[in-house]
């Protein structure tokens, strides 16, 4: 009988919860909960330490503490983790010794779902993966399935596809600028970033009918042609976007505090970035000029003029500058696409349910977070036999344990925000 119960005659709800937990665990065939007696701050003494022996060498390394070290859980519900993710941080004072990302809180099994959906339906399942760039998520499967089907996409559809993904890139990179400042305590830039994003979202909503999960791509084309509302909004947006971005840029780029906290922080060398599989703006900020749009040109990118921009230093500040440069380049690409867009149909004739010949197809696109690729296998049936997705932010997270040791706890958020991960994509 606890103190509460003795005083009031009412059972302590914590004790009731523990009894219920023990009953449920027994019913499910799991081990009984640990019978450790908790003190006044129940559970505080064993935060982060798993109640089982370590499974691997690396886990033993992270979860064993030397004198003066402690473990700290960041997340899973943390405003700066960009979704639901837990970072187990090993600390010595305020200095990070080691870091272990724990994923899977948002795992929905999209790959398995896609194995049970027809090829057309797959394009609706991949939207909520990387929800800040849903158009890119649909792009790679569409290309892969067109390879399997052996069909040709109309020229105009290719231009519309490139147009919407570049719009999406502007919005996503603009948000990254805001979130990076937000995670370091600057609240204003995110508000300006959302003004810009809202305009892009309205644009894409005008062409696709949805604000976030567009379901716009079809195998062999796109769902809708551009309409008057889209074109008029695009004109307004184009006249204002650079002003918006530059306003935000002036707010952040030369800010003394921002520079002090980002320059020389979390430096990732090009060699390490390649070994770790980091792609996209994060890789280019480390000086490696790898861009899928140039390296393996898909769609119409072979015909468009653009450079692969790189930075030299590979720190948080370089990753931020890289985003700004890419926004401007995307706007340059959008101008070219609008100028050259041909007339014609936007959808090839494709039956609703197709049984493509058995085969394999690999398609990669450059998403705002890096190389997003799809490997699809057909066995001749109406659904893919295997549908494999490689999400760039999932792989980029591996850089955290490499970069963080030696930095302060508060810098974790800056480094993580500079990689711009989206947990919907990380956890698939």
């Amino acid at each position: 009988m606890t103190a509460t119960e003795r005083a009031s005659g009412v059972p302590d709800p914590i004790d009731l919860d523990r009894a219920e937990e023990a009953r449920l665990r027994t019913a499910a065939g799991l081990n009984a909960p640990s019978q450790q007696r908790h003190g006044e701050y129940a559970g505080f003494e064993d935060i982060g330490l798993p109640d089982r022996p370590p499974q691997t060498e690396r886990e033993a390394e992270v979860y064993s503490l030397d004198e003066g070290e402690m473990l700290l859980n960041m997340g899973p519900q943390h405003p700066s983790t960009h979704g639901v993710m837990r970072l187990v941080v090993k600390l010595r004072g305020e200095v990070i010794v080691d870091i272990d990302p724990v994923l899977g809180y948002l795992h929905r099994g999209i790959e398995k779902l896609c194995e049970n959906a027809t090829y057309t339906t797959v394009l609706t399942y991949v939207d909520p993966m990387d929800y800040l760039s849903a158009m890119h998520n649909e792009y790679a499967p569409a290309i892969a399935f067109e390879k399997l089907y052996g069909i040709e996409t109309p020229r105009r559809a290719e231009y519309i596809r490139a147009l919407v993904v570049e719009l999406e890139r502007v919005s996503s990179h603009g948000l990254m600028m805001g979130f990076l400042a937000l995670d370091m305590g600057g609240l204003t830039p995110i508000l300006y970033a959302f003004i810009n994003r809202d305009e892009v979202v309205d644009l894409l909503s005008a062409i696709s009918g949805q604000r976030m999960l567009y379901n716009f791509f079809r195998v062999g084309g796109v769902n809708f042609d551009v309409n008057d509302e889209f074109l008029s909004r695009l004109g307004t947006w184009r006249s204002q976007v650079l002003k918006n971005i530059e306003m935000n840029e002036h707010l952040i780029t030369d800010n003394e505090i921002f520079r002090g906290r980002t320059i020389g922080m979390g430096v990732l060398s090009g060699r390490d970035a390649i070994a770790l599989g980091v792609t996209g703006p994060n890789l280019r900020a480390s000086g490696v000029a790898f861009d899928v749009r140039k390296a393996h040109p898909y769609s119409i990118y072979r015909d468009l003029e653009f450079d692969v921009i790189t930075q030299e230093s590979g720190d948080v500040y370089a990753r931020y500058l890289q985003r700004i440069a890419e926004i401007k380049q995307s706007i340059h690409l959008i101008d070219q696409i609008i100028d050259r867009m041909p007339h014609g149909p936007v959808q090839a004739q494709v039956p609703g349910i197709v049984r493509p010949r058995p085969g394999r197809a690999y398609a990669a696109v450059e998403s705002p977070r890096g190389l997003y690729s799809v490997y699809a296998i057909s066995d001749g049936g109406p659904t893919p036999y295997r549908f494999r997705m490689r999400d760039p932010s999932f792989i980029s997270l591996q850089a955290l344990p490499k970069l963080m040791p030696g930095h302060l706890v508060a810098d974790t958020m800056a480094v993580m925000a500079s990689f711009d991960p989206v947990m919907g994509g990380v956890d698939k």
Partner: protein
Amino acid sequence: MEHLRRPRPAAHPLGRGRSLTTPVAVGPLVRLLTERLGARARDLWTDEDAVEIQVDGQDNVEVLRTVRDDPDLEFFFLTDAGAVDYGIDAHFEVVYHLFSWKHPAWLRVRARVQRDDPRIPTVTDLWEGAMFHEREMYDMMGIVFEGNRDLRRIYMSPDYRSFPQRRDFVLPDDAADSAAAGVNPLERPETWDLGRLRHAAGATFAPAEFRADAPAEGPHDGAQDGETAADKSRPR
């Protein structure tokens, strides 16, 4: 309606034809691969923008090191590594996709893994970034990467016991009818009604040593370390 009458594009000699990705010249790459890898690379096959080879599971590190370090090949970037389950009576495959500046095609290396002993050497020594790929493959398919120093589950919880992306994994629709319905059905493979699976007899859900009910390793019949049966029968 012009586009409706457009004839299907003619098949490209290298694979099925399409115009989205311009077919690239893969001839030099095919020749180099045959020359450098010899008998280790089987079933060479080309797509319009990819070249594919199949290797034995145990050869994967050697083959990948060759294509990465050879100055004429230089496939320095591992863009993807994923596993494929070809069914209960077949095998697993670990599929690596590689990129090189010197060749305008993706290189796809398919390494075969036996289903009853799903082990393959790790490639984390070549690319550190293969770690999360391998953890995901272990989590989803149950493929064990020998030499990987952090082979934990990455998406599912650590006490999860089956491998959800295998072809014989029972989907919730099936599990809802089973005896264990209501109590975490997907986490209790021993209660699944496997009779409805086509190949129920051969169904395996975990390598034997990962099962909770597996006998612990090592001699436990009173023998000491290093003893054989013959030693034990000898009088002490």
